[in-house]
């Protein structure tokens, strides 16, 4: 069944990725930054799957699956960090978390 | 055979580290291993064909065959003598450590044995990457030995030593990689010569720091003063010779063109080092300082001989490497013995040690007299050959060298009279003991080696190069006549 061409999928993927990038760059809450990261990853996943379908090979899908696994573990670490921050009653604002300044 | 020479001490180190044994046994086990190393070397000498040319006692196994890197070791006449020097000085140093006693003996003796293996490896390696690996492997035990068991200022000394050496080594690594890739092999025997000045300088820089040559000796006084005496003995006696060996085996043999081009600047640096070291030795306030700066001067002299580029220079340089190794080894151990008795090496607080301590006086006097190159001593023989050789590059070098003989007389006599003669120094307790049998057992063999060499210096000088024609041997890349480059394959 002929669906939309691969171009459309890629367009959506780009929009998703750009949204994510903007989110990471503009938002100050670490929670939202993490969320935006997830959106970026999913944008990339969409592109992978689209190409996979387009080329008729399974590699891209497998890769997308492993990206999901990585994303899940990353969220675990990230959320854990945020919870730890919250517990220490540190302001949840990435602009104020500058301890690593040289 | 060569592999056994390298890995006997390494396995000794593993033995000391891994096999459980009472602490008291550790030192004597290490001493046994290093004596076994000396015995093994004697066996190697017995089996060595001094008359024939080319690499001997060769072992070879492929390592990274794509890059033509192999585990390739073997000995030439001159490397055989340097290996012997290593075995003897390291055995004496381990013996000295046993007699003095060291904290954490397992770690200490293991490192000393590891160091032995690494140094022997440097002298035996016939593959540039292997050479580099051993060259760096020397640094690790030294880093720990100076940094952990050294004196009060050991941290600074270690840091300086390591930074200097690393800087040189990295340049050498770059040179090695470029040289190896351009030759298509990293093998020293198989590779041809190169005309690249930059590669030559990369090697020369590393060796000039390790030797050290003026003005790269910034690490020297601290390292020689702060390390324990036996480590200082190894540093100045043996490790510095690895640099001189590198000059001979790699810088000069592989880069004949650049060697010619840079001869003058290197001779100038060596001569400056010779005079400069001698003058500073004359004003150094402590025993180790005198020995350290005289080492700087001697390394300058050896470099003069190497870059004289003729038969006499090469023969003399090899002879002087062996001499100076034994001399400065013995002197540092003696300095250690004196420091143990008086808790200081400052010349102004020593004195009068000769009276009632005949063994100390005799040994120090004998070594000192050989160190100042009194004629008929082996050091005189070496200096004579070197200066007669470098005379052909210009009379000025020989005049400077002869002048430094006078300076050497001045600083050695100053050392001897400040320690042994004059009134009794403030730091010298009334009941200071003479050398004990254990210390004599270490020093007397060293002195005996020196005296034997004095009776027959030609044993080394005439048995170092193929057919006793050093210049020809070096120019042919130490190959037997007729032996051509074998593996000249390009990279895949």
């Amino acid at each position: 069944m002929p669906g939309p061409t691969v171009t459309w999928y890629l367009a959506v993927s780009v929009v998703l990725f750009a949204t994510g990038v903007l989110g990471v760059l503009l938002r100050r809450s670490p929670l939202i930054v993490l969320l935006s990261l997830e959106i970026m990853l999913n944008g990339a996943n969409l592109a992978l799957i689209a190409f996979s379908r387009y080329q008729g090979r399974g590699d891209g899908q497998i890769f997308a699956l492993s990206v999901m696994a990585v994303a899940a573990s990353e969220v675990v670490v990230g959320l854990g960090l945020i919870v730890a921050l919250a517990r220490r009653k540190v302001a949840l604002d990435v602009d104020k978390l500058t301890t690593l300044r040289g | 055979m060569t592999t056994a020479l390298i890995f006997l001490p390494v396995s000794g180190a593993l033995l000391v580290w891994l096999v459980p044994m009472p602490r008291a046994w550790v030192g004597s086990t290490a001493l046994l291993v290093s004596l076994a190393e000396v015995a093994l070397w004697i066996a190697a000498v017995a089996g060595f064909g001094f008359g024939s040319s080319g690499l001997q006692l060769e072992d070879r196994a492929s390592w990274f065959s794509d890059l033509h890197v192999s585990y390739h070791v073997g000995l030439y006449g001159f490397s055989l003598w340097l290996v012997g020097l290593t075995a003897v000085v390291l055995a004496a140093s381990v013996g000295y450590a046993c007699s003095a006693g060291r904290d954490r003996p397992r770690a200490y003796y293991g490192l000393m044995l590891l160091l032995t293996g690494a140094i022997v490896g440097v002298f035996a390696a016939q593959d540039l990457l292997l050479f580099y690996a051993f060259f760096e492997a020397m640094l690790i035990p030294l880093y720990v030995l100076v940094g952990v068991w050294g004196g009060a200022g050991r941290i600074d000394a270690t840091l300086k030593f390591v930074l200097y050496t690393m800087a040189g080594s990295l340049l050498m690594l770059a040179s090695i990689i470029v040289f190896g890739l351009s030759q298509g092999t990293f093998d020293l025997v198989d590779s041809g010569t190169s005309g690249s000045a930059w590669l030559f300088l990369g090697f020369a820089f590393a060796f000039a720091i390790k030797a050290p040559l003026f003005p790269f000796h910034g690490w020297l006084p601290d390292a020689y003063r702060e390390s324990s005496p036996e480590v200082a003995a190894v540093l100045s006696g043996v490790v510095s010779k690895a640099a001189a060996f590198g000059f001979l085996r790699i810088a000069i043999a592989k880069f004949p063109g650049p060697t010619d081009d840079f001869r003058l600047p290197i001779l100038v640096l060596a001569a400056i080092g010779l005079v400069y070291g001698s003058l500073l030795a004359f004003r150094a306030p402590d025993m180790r300082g005198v020995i350290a700066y005289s080492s700087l001067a001697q390394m300058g002299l050896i470099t003069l001989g190497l870059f004289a580029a003729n038969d006499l220079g090469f023969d003399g340089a090899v002879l002087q490497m062996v001499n100076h190794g034994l001399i400065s080894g013995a002197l540092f151990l003696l300095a250690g013995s004196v420091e143990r008795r008086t808790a200081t090496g400052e010349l102004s607080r020593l004195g009068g040690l000769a009276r009632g301590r005949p063994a100390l006086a005799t040994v120090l006097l004998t070594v000192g007299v050989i160190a100042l190159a009194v004629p008929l001593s082996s050091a005189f023989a070496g200096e004579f050959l070197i200066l007669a050789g470098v005379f052909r590059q210009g009379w000025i070098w020989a005049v400077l060298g002869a002048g430094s003989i006078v300076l050497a007389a001045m600083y050695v006599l100053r050392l001897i009279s400040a320690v042994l003669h004059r009134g009794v120094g403030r730091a010298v307790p009334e009941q200071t003991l003479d050398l004990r049998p254990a210390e004599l057992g270490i020093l007397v063999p060293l002195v005996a080696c020196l005296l034997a060499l004095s009776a027959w210096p030609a044993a080394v000088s005439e048995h170092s190069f193929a057919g006793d024609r050093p210049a020809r041997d070096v120019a042919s890349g130490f190959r037997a006549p007729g032996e051509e480059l074998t593996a000249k394959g390009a990279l895949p």
Partner: protein
Amino acid sequence: MITTSAWVCLLSPLVACLAIALAGNRISRRGSGYLATGAVALSFAAAVVAFVGLLGEQPDERSHLSTAWTWLGGGSYHSGLSVLVDPLSVFMMLVVSGVGSLIVAYSLGYMDGDDEERRFFAYMALFVFSMLLLVQGGNLLLLLAGWGMVGLSSYLLIGFNQRRPQAIAAAKKAFVMNAFGDATMVLALFLLVQHTGTLDFAATFERAQGLASNHWVVNLVALGLLGGAVAKSAQLPLQTWLPDAMEGPTPVSALIHAATMVTAGVYLIVRAHPLFELAPTVEDLAAGLGAATILLAGLIALVQTDVKRVIAYSTMSQIGYMFLGAGLGSYANGMFHLLTHAFFKALLFLAAGLVIHALAGEQDMRRMGGLRRLMPRTWLAFLVGALALVGVPPFSGFFSKDSILAAALDHGTYGYVLWAAGLGGALLTGLYTFRMLFLVFGGEPSPFVREHHHAHEGKEGPLSMTATVAVLAVLATVGGWIQLAGVWTPVSDWLFPVAEPLVEATGRQEAISSVLAVGLGLLGAAIAWWIYAARRGRVPRLRAVRTLLERKFYFDEAYDLVFYWPAAAISRAWGSLVEGPLVGGAGAGLGQATRGAGRLTARAQTGLLRSYALAIAASLAVLAVVFISVR
């Protein structure tokens, strides 16, 4: 047979030295003395055997080279560990081991009771070995080896009394000045190696003939060798170490600084005469330095107050005669004077040693006097030595010294100048010798002498000391009779195959020189008697001259100014200006640089998460553009 005995001669003192050193406390003090004496006596016996062996051969076949093994080599150059037995070396072997064994025997008594007797005898044996190596060495390298070794043993023996700072300083001074001479000699050898490729005597001399046209090389070689000879023999301008060397025990002064080592320079000139003959200018220089030293040392000796220093200056002056002879090419006369000088100078030193021994170590002549009554036999021995030194017939000095002066007459105008200097020296010799004799032995015993003089069991000294002095007194008397110029010349004939003389004095020249020299010597003695014994004259008061002489012509001060202070200043300046910054600065500089670089890069590390993210995104964008556009 001949070479075997030569090896025995060479090695027996070395064996004794090693045995004493290794035995340590297991050998008694006395025993070490006997061992050393026996070994040196064995050397003498072996030397005699070699001498007799050579006597039995044709004059032109008297040369044997025996090589044990190759001592040093490199490339085509080789030097063997070899001994050469020829008339010259046997001559020196006999002098060294003969006088040596007498003096070592004397030391048995002199050093008795010193708690470091063993060390002394070990050093003495080492010295005799070194000196024999010097004279027996079969090539120039071994000669140089012996040359350095005698310097070393001289250093050890001068500084024997380790608690005396003056002794240590004197020992160091002697060694360093000699090292300077060694250095010039080494340079000469380098030149020879470069141009002839060998250091064997015969081959070097033969190939050097081919260099005759190359004036620079031959002159420099001769000059370098002369530098060594001058330093070792304490001639101008390297003479200042010898008087200080009198800090050593008296037998040492007698053996090393009178009889043997200091005359090595003469041996060197005679041995290497083919090289010197190629450079006549340098030969003349050697003779001139000798003549200058005769006068300079004679003048300084006039004002010395230490008995041993007077004898030391007279040694310098006498070696000046030998240099004069050797430099003129009158080799046999130089060597003959070396022989007689060894006898009478050793005698003077040993007799002075008896005096010093009896006065508990006092050496200042101003405190002595009147010893003639207390020590009559010593006085007699000293008188014999003095007469031989001044050159009064029939004592030995007469036969040897005057031939040298006569030889000077056969050397043109320059020769006349040298001759005049030599005659002036004869006058000075008479003056200072008898001044010393009268000050020490003449007049009434001084208070100091009366207080401190102690007889040794009713005798003037232990048997080992008095007996050797007696033997030397006999030798100093008859030792010169083996040659009378123009009439009876066994010494010249013996040395002829090795060193053909360049000058030949006529009978008339000999006679004139002899008469004048003896006359002037006696005149000097008479003046000394007039002033010091009869006390009819006064010492002239020339304060400036006196200070100049007492300061030894300011040589020490000049050398300090020219060599020592600049070296010390350079070394200090380098220490603070170069070494400090280089060693301390290198570490500090490295640290500073690293820290600075770190500070720069740290600026980029804002800590703002969003700026990092932006950097990443921006770099990605740039990379993407690059990839797309490059493809």
